[in-house]
């Protein structure tokens, strides 16, 4: 018998602390597998954010830095400038990247910083218990939009990929999802390409992964996948928003 699927060496043995069905776990796997397949795990330095993935440093089997909320791109810049040959990635939630950290991601992109950004957009602040994020959909109920997000008070969802694609400094920006096997396989390709770009010194790459938060969405894991496909994708369409060849 041949093993066709087993846990990648890019991850440690530690069990994820994520809620049942939370797709953070899938994204972790794709990142770790990419590093292993590209043979750069030994050069990788990851930056863990503040958010549900705050413990990412316990899972990725490489050197890691834990960054303050939203500032992972700045921390990654510090790392990459000291060690230009290392493979540096940030792993950030939508609260982290699109709310408090919007200046840092924007400027890392503008600088064309040669890093890979993994942006896990689950349309909510997961870790803090389900508050409205900049990515929360209009009408979506959260603890801080108890009657559903109202654009008049709360504004509109932010499409980070579309925005950052406008910057001259950004190289490759794609939005993917992980709601089924096909999507997961495609997401893997995108993530891998984002790392290949870095290896080839192409500059700033970001993959936005639409992800679920069954706990704070108040849905089963399976319903969450469906909601993502049906509701989230219409606000956050999948696709490549920038690719400099």
């Amino acid at each position, binding site marked *: 018998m041949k093993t066709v699927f087993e846990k990648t060496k890019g991850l440690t043995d530690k069990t994820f*602390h*994520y*809620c*049942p069905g939370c797709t953070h776990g899938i994204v972790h796997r794709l990142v770790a597998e990419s590093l292993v397949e590209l043979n750069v795990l030994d050069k990788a330095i990851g930056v863990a954010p503040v958010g*549900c993935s705050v413990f990412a440093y316990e899972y990725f089997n490489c050197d890691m830095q834990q960054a303050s909320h939203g500032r992972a791109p700045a921390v990654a810049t510090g790392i990459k400038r000291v060690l230009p040959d290392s493979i540096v990635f940030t792993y950030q939630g939508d609260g982290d990247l699109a709310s408090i950290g919007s200046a840092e991601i924007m400027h890392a992109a503008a600088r064309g910083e040669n890093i890979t950004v993994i942006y896990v957009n689950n349309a909510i602040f997961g870790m803090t218990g389900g508050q409205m994020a900049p990515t929360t959909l209009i009408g979506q109920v959260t603890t801080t939009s108890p009657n559903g997000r109202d654009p008049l008070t709360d504004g509109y969802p932010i499409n980070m990929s579309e925005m950052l694609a406008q910057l001259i400094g950004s190289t490759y920006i794609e939005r993917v999802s992980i709601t089924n096997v096909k999507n997961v396989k495609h997401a893997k390709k995108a993530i891998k390409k984002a790392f290949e770009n870095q290896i080839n010194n192409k500059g700033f790459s970001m993959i936005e992964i639409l992800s679920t938060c069954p706990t704070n969405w108040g849905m089963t894991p399976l319903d969450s996948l469906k909601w993502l496909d049906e509701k989230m994708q219409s606000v956050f369409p999948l696709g490549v928003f920038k690719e400099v060849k």
Partner: protein
Amino acid sequence: MEKMILAGFGGQGIMSMGQMIAYAGMVEDKNVTWLPSYGPEMRGGTANCNVIVSDKDIASPIVDHASTVIVMNKPSLEKFEHYVAPGGNLYINSSLIDHKVSRTDIHVHYIPASDIAVEIGNVKVANMVLLGALLKISKVITEKSVLDALSKVLGSSKTHLFEINELALEKGAALVSNTNPNIAM
């Protein structure tokens, strides 16, 4: 003064059980505090809270020496067994905890709460089974106040759940006489 620690998996209704006790105490004009642990065990893992109901002023809401401990899963038993003050009561959800307690200076009550809850139709009322047992023994608050609290917690939209909760309380109360025999004191 009753100083309680309630602990179990997240989702077993630990926090709401604690709040119901506190609310009932308040209704009876007692001093009450409820303090959740909101620590590292948040995602999955265990949840626990401290509840104090007292006729006197309550200085600290923190329970280091508990007169009552309810544990609904095994990690909680491991963590909180030694918090029970000598002479205190320890209620164990024996459906999920096969371990037997060796301490002899406390009252240990083994109650197959989850099994009973499934039996009466909803595994989620296991907490109420244990609460029923507690009420029988401790008498710190009356069942009536708890039922008041319950109907407040459930609200008008969930009155259909009232009966099964009441039943769970009764089942728990009934069980508490035949606690494990090998308890000292």
